[in-house]
């Protein structure tokens, strides 16, 4: 294998450069003026300016979009993890057909792309008064990612021996207590992994805000960025400042929790 690795090294180094260089250009460029960017795209900023960030927040409304994204993401991730782990607990504990039937109904959603439901979903949410609202986004993000969450958490919960719960219930614990004190601590790694997958999905979701949100005050980051592009078509330093603002939270968490991140995005994505 070492010889194989050696032969592949030039290809891989080239690929590495192709990943890093554009990102460097963006991070540097966010602190430059447009002429500076065009003159030397790869050079670090010679006289760094925060002007692009100021304009991105003031003219592009990225400040409020950031807050909306945070609220929607926190709400949707929490709600999804709670209802998915409760449902997965049932599927893992109730033997035979009932458990599998519930699991099947919830997981069948994996086969349906989000786009398939959007037309009637929009109509339904509109009738419920849930379009152009952050609560509506929380709910639609939740039902979109729920099948994946149930699938992954169900897989983990099936590995917990039933005897553990029975022992606790013999001691007088309610099922809810058994869920809280036994199941949740045991599947903590799976919860972290699933949580990260949901965080990235919800934080980066464009489809639903684009359909559901009409007013400026309810825009989330990806939607604000898209509007931004219409306004500042080739004002690259401004667009780059927007990219940095929108990506910073995800990248920071990625650097801190790398292993969970890779596991979460890979299992979550491949299952979902």
């Amino acid at each position, binding site marked *: *294998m070492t010889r*194989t*690795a050696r032969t*592949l*090294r030039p290809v*891989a180094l080239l690929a*590495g450069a*192709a*990943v890093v*260089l554009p*990102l460097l*250009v*963006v991070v540097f460029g966010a602190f430059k003026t447009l002429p500076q960017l*065009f003159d030397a*795209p790869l050079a670090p900023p010679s006289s760094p300016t925060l002007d692009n960030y100021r304009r991105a927040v003031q003219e592009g409304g990225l400040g409020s979009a950031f807050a909306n994204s945070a609220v929607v993401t926190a709400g949707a991730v929490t709600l999804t993890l709670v209802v*998915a782990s409760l*449902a997965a607990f*049932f599927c893992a504990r109730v033997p035979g057909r009932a458990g599998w039937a*519930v699991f099947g*109904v*919830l997981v069948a*959603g994996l086969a349906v*792309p989000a*786009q*398939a*439901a*959007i*037309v*009637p979903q929009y*109509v*339904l949410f509109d009738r419920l008064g849930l379009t152009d609202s952050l609560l509506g986004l929380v709910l639609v993000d939740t*039902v979109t990612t*729920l*099948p994946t969450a*149930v699938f992954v958490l169900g897989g983990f919960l099936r590995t917990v021996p039933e005897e553990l719960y*029975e022992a606790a*219930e*013999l001691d007088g614990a309610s*099922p809810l207590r058994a869920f809280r004190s036994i199941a949740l601590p045991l599947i903590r790694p799976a919860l972290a992994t699933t949580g990260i997958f949901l965080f990235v999905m919800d934080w*980066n979701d*464009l*489809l639903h805000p*684009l359909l559901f949100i009409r007013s400026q005050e309810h825009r989330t*980051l*990806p939607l604000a*960025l*898209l509007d931004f592009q219409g306004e500042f078509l080739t004002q*690259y330093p401004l667009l780059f400042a*927007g*990219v940095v603002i*929108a*990506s910073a939270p*995800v*990248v920071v968490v990625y650097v801190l929790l*790398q292993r969970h*991140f*890779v596991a979460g*995005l*890979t299992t979550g*994505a491949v299952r979902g």
Partner: protein
Amino acid sequence: MSSTRSGRRRRTARALWLFPVPALALHLFLFAYPVVQAVQYALTDWDGYSAAYDNVGLRNFAELATDDDTFANAAGNNLKLTLTVVLAQTALALLLALWLVRTTRASTLLRAVFFLPTVLSSVSVAFVWRFVYDPDGGLLNSALRAVGLDSLQSVYLGDPDTAVFWLALTQVWFHAGQMMVVFIAGLQAIPKELYEAAELDGAGRLTRFRYVTWPLVAPATGIVVAYTTVQSFKAFDLVLGLAGNPPGPALDILSTRVYTTFSNNQFGYAAAQSLVFMVLIALLTWVQRRAIGRATR
């Protein structure tokens, strides 16, 4: 209050039935029911807001199949995109995985680098690549000018013949690292003894790849191909970010086409399009599963 074991167990079981209720209620009401309704809408000419609409039977589907150039164009673009991305991303991800499968300090760092784009939002990635492809002062053309290859400069996304190819390149940059991780897991599961045995038999490197690595990594290949296919059908955010909203004909794919139809208030027609889109994905996934199943048997 029966304190017998079976009594307590029954009570437990009854309480347990409440656990899946929130998930089922949300899922059935806000997701499954709309999917079923899509079928109903697809048989009408509803515009989304009028009280009156007609049932038109299968007319929407007939129009789609015979008389909708924009949909056919989007389907063609989507097919080109899917083929290109599946081939390029699978090959590149496997190469990277072969290179980085052994855990050293350098390979750990490089894996992290290759995976990094995956965590970004599609709109962010689209902005990065808008600058890479910008014909005037963009990264690619400046680089070509810098090394004296001016003749190779291009307008990239502005050229209708090659736009989909450049979109595919961005897609591969975005997700090859994620698929590399799947391949690394697949490669690590291959028993070392097999390589040792092959080496004892005097098998060269290519022979070992052909008869050990390739057949044994096939399950991972299957996952990568299936996932990449679905992903290229969902490249919605990336296209809107790169091409603007709505995208022009050169970069229109099925998901953006459905969205544009919906935005034009043709709700019934958009529902029909989204069902065809869904069936296409399901068909492709099924065909691939069978093909991969046969290849790994």
